């Protein structure tokens, strides 16, 4: 009975969504805003990567919000977990030699790759979030492969996390004071197109985001790990 009702209701919803989708102009170049991005993104932001020009240029404010959401998620998780009673979850398996050796070999490379990704966010696919996530994956590997757990340095991770976010904001506020007086205004010169030092504030922000996201995601893992101990 209940299931039947749910199915009917969901079918109605599906009907609605289909009805809405059926009028959508797929395959037509009607999207004026998107057209503007592809046509003028290069001039407007100086970034070779159009996605980045949208993410940090046209819609940089959203990205500030997303950074905040991530920050928030990290804090929220810590709040919830810190209130729970600690309960152990059995002995930890000692990591194998392969894993351990692999970690030693791969860890610097992962960090390097992550750094590359976020530094070249304005040129190639990727960016601060992706680079940060790559870096955090290195830390996951560390936790899995080191026999005696090394905890993240609380001081350093907090510093990275906060400073990363603050740099983003401060750059935005500088933009408000300089030049055309818009928040998040690109007050740095755009430089030569398609080189590392181009696109004004975008690489700076992406580097800050990269550090922030990397440390935040690592911290989330750290908090979860702490919980399981």
């Amino acid at each position, binding site marked *: 009975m209940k299931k039947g009702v749910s199915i009917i209701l969901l079918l109605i919803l599906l009907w609605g969504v289909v009805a809405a989708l059926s009028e959508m102009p797929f395959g037509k170049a009607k999207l004026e805003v998107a057209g503007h991005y592809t046509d003028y993104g290069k001039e407007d932001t100086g970034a070779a990567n159009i996605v980045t020009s949208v993410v940090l240029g046209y819609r940089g*404010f959203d990205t500030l919000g997303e950074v905040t959401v991530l920050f*928030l998620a990290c804090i929220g998780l810590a709040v919830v977990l810190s209130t729970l009673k600690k309960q152990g979850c059995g002995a930890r398996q000692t990591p194998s030699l392969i894993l351990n050796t692999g970690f030693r070999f791969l860890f610097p490379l992962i960090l390097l790759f992550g750094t590359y990704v976020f530094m070249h966010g304005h040129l190639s696919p990727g960016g601060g979030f992706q680079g940060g996530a790559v870096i955090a994956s290195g830390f996951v590997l560390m936790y899995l492969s080191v026999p005696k757990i090394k905890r993240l340095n609380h001081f350093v991770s907090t510093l990275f996390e906060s400073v990363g976010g603050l740099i983003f904001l401060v750059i*935005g506020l500088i933009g408000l004071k300089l030049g055309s007086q818009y928040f998040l205004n690109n007050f740095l010169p755009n430089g030569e197109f398609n080189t590392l030092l181009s696109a004004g504030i975008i690489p700076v922000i992406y580097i800050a985001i990269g550090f922030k996201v990397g440390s935040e995601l690592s911290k989330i893992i750290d908090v979860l790990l702490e919980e399981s101990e």
Partner: protein
Amino acid sequence: MNEIMNLNPVLLIAVPIGLAMLVPILGLMSSKIVKWVPVVGFLFNSVVSLAVLPRVLNQPIIVKIAGFAPPFGINLVAGPVGMFLAALIAVSGFLVAVYSLDYIHEGAAEKYHILFLLLLSGATGVVLTGDIFNLFVFFEILCISSYALVAYLGNRSGIEAAVKYLIQGAIGSSLLLIGIGLLYGQFGTLNMADLAQNITSFSEPSVFVPMILMVTGLGIEAAIFPLNAWLPDAHSSAPSSISAVLSGIAIEVGLYAVIRVVFTICHVTGSFFVFLVAIAVVTVLIGEMSAFGQKNIKRMLAYSSIGQIGLILFAFSLATEFGVSGGLFQMLSHTLGKVLLFLSAGYMIYRTGSMEISSFEGVGKKMPWTALFFTIGTLSIIGLPPFAGFSSKFLIIKAALAKGDLLYILLMGIVLLGTVIEGTYFFRVVQVIYFKESNNKTEPEGPPVSGLISMSVFAILVVLIGLFPNAILKILTTAASELLNNLEYIRSVLG
């Protein structure tokens, strides 16, 4: 003064977020300084928003982020509605932050302050933004910090409530996102004014379905019946200062977003408003009737918030100038009244150690000020003169009668029946506080100075606004015309 007036409204969002990110660093240096951060932040916000408010009454300020003209970039629309609500959020946030100085003394206080800052900056973002996806982002900030704060006390009920809230909230956010996606697919723009310009009729499925998805998604946060099942649990499990903000601000911001979608973006007309009025009336009745039998003070207040939201929605759904300004006024008086109630209940709970109403016997003698503040809040929420709630109820009833339709008069009769129920249970609590002697003879002990200051300011505001509603009314009339006249909105944003 002039300089403050010319400050950019984007600071109202950027500064609290920045301070929230600064808190961990400050926390490394000194743990005492942290709790002052929200106070400073919202003091700044209050000053700025109140200073900017008169300026936007004539002409809304359109803030282009990064200098991209709408619809290509994100813009903030600091119109009368947005700035009015932003000021309300800032002032209440400031006072609740003062209250929290001493009230929050256990748990991860540093994280509490971060979440509190972000909760309200999210709310400010929602009311100021002019971009639907940006609204979604700030809405997420608002919701996620609420989830975490509901679980802040870490007891079983808190975690359970937070999880329930999270599930429903996540469904809401997804629906909102799907709705936004469908609209984007249809019209290729995310700017609210641009969308409004492109949408010619809301009743075609291609607009109606996304609108319903968005209204439902936002309606969950706005606690419209039947989407409000998370509210009683969540609001009663959070720390009282947070319950105050959730009940007084968060749900109203949700409702604001619903109204924005319905009025400005989709420019709904006709019978859909009748449906909204009906839903509002049901919300009032369900809320008030559920509150009626409650033994737990915070649950009672939470259910009463549902009723109040119903009343606000009722006012908005009349879709007349009187109705909308009455609804906005009711938002104001509900925020002040409900926050005051939760804050005073917070210390009563803290001192008596129980949330049961029956345990408040004799509180009137032991904590005379707190009890007085509670009573003032009660009278205002019920809508009795000379308190703020009266003016708003007056406007709403006037608006309903001005419709001149028997249906509205009848529906309003039902709403007023809700008020009678509300009066009954609130007055019962007042009786318990003042007219029942307690058995245990504990020493009388009032709240600390910080709590008293913040509660007394709320109480004074409730009385002052009740006595001098005209100052507010002027703002609200312009605000109402902004909501009702979406062509004006489109013109001011897109030029």
